[in-house]
């Protein structure tokens, strides 16, 4: 059973479009992280959110942590080809448990020029 469900699994869009990626769980997390992974590389941390309802912005990327700390979303405005990659969410501290992050399957994003 996947603790974290990410949707959509695949996304193929044109440069300039907006998109939202979702990360959902039935568990409450102490913190949730978003990573981007490019082919042949390890995941790179984009952001960590810890407070329910928290919104963080990183240039054209907006991250939101749900009020109940069970879900999160990543919104990209005016996507560019450089945004192409696998976007992974990872939750830690579920129900007072381990702080080792548990990853979702990821959303594979392709942005066409």
């Amino acid at each position, binding site marked *: 059973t996947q603790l974290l469900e990410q949707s959509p699994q695949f996304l193929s869009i044109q440069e300039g479009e907006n998109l939202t990626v979702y990360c959902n769980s039935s568990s409450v997390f102490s*913190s949730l992280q978003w990573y981007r992974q490019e082919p042949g590389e390890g995941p790179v941390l984009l952001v960590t959110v810890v407070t329910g309802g928290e919104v963080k912005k990183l240039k054209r990327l907006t991250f939101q942590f749900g009020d109940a700390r069970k879900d999160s979303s990543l919104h990209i405005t005016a996507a560019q080809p450089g945004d192409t990659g696998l976007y992974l969410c990872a939750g*830690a*501290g579920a129900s007072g448990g381990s702080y*080792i992050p548990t*990853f*979702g399957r990821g959303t594979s994003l392709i942005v066409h020029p």
Partner: protein
Amino acid sequence: DAGVTQSPTHLIKTRGQQVTLRCSPKSGHDTVSWYQQALGQGPQFIFQYYEEEERQRGNFPDRFSGHQFPNYSSELNVNALLLGDSALYLCASSLGRRGTDTQYFGPGTRLTVL
């Protein structure tokens, strides 16, 4: 400042063989975690080493073992390889054993079991 490095980058083995993967953490980091990432999946936690001891372990069989050296570098050993062990093996380093600190991932070792 060197980041996390892993070796080798690619490896091909046959079923039943044994393999050792290596990881050097980011400078100043003392904790190393290992993950397995199968094709189309997110990374799955194998185990974490801190102060040369295995501190936490994920749901992996005893065929997966590891070691951490006094210089904080680490090895992942897998015995009796199965076809299903084919994956990208990622090493991540951090400072402190709590796991809430930011983890920095290496580029991974791609293992193919034939």
